[in-house]
């Protein structure tokens, strides 16, 4: 499929890419044909600086994405408990 469905969310943070560290202000998330990964469909996240400058891009399988979501939530839960 080719869909144009893109989930956009504002974020506050930094990312390191080929040009070094920089601020990132948004993440664009979509599930569609990847550019590089050897997958038919990939969960892609573009970490953006502003609305048009892509600082870091990742493409991963649906299974990887779900595992990543679980890891993020798990790390947040245990980390926030530790630092409370």
């Amino acid at each position, binding site marked *: *499929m*080719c869909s*144009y469905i893109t989930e956009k969310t504002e974020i506050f943070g930094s990312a390191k890419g080929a040009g070094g560290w920089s601020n990132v202000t948004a993440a*664009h998330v979509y599930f*569609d*044909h990847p550019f590089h990964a050897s997958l*038919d469909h990939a969960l892609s996240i573009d970490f953006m600086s502003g*609305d048009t400058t*892509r600082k870091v891009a990742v493409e991963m399988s649906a299974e990887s994405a779900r595992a990543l979501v679980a890891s993020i939530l798990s790390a947040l839960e245990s980390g926030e408990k530790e630092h409370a």
Partner: protein
Amino acid sequence: MSYRGMTAEIVTITGDKGDKIKAYYAKPAGEGPFPGVVLIHHMPGWDDWTMEAVRKLAHQGFACIAHHLYDRFGPGSPDDLAAKARSAGGVYDDEVVGDVNGAMAFLRAQPESNGKVGMIGFCSGGRHTFLASSRLGGVDAAVNCWGGNIVVDDPTQLTPQRPVAPIDLTDGLKAPLLGLFGNEDKNPSPEQVNTLEAKLKACGKSYDFHRYDGAGHAFFAAERPAYRVEQANDGWQKVYAFYRQHLA
């Protein structure tokens, strides 16, 4: 063909509204005359596979050009520009049609041209091929490879960029149409392919549809799991034969 050399290069064409956009152009060695083909890339962008497909057609004796649909979002690498285009909701149908018109004009202006021009597009490019072939004159043969969203079941999917379901433009189609589809595809689904075929038949159009078992979307994509070697080889042979019939 005893000698299959070719030249391949980046050229600039005049697209919609007179905009200058980049294109990848490959032509067989020799004086010709050669038929031309406009190749429309898929949604991930003006990528390496697109250029391989251009060279594949040149190898078969066609002067082939693939313009960069997302060039106006530049400068930037093809993958970054594809991400920008996606973020903006895609390119506008009118712009696509204008760019195709410019690519066809480029091909016909080459001294090696035999005056005939076909089109081929993959995935979203299949939709663009159907769209442009229905709105423009001068397309001598069109190939739709698994173009999605030609049939739009849910009207809320129409957007300012894509305001029409191309199936509604079928009356305007003048070129003979070859369609290649995987029966395991979800967009277009086999039911949507049947709907499109019924419309073409009702409008009295010349078409030739091939549906492949054991294949889904993008089964020509040799670098992805979707690749199906037997179906892809057969599909490419059908493309060459179709163009040799209509573009000679």
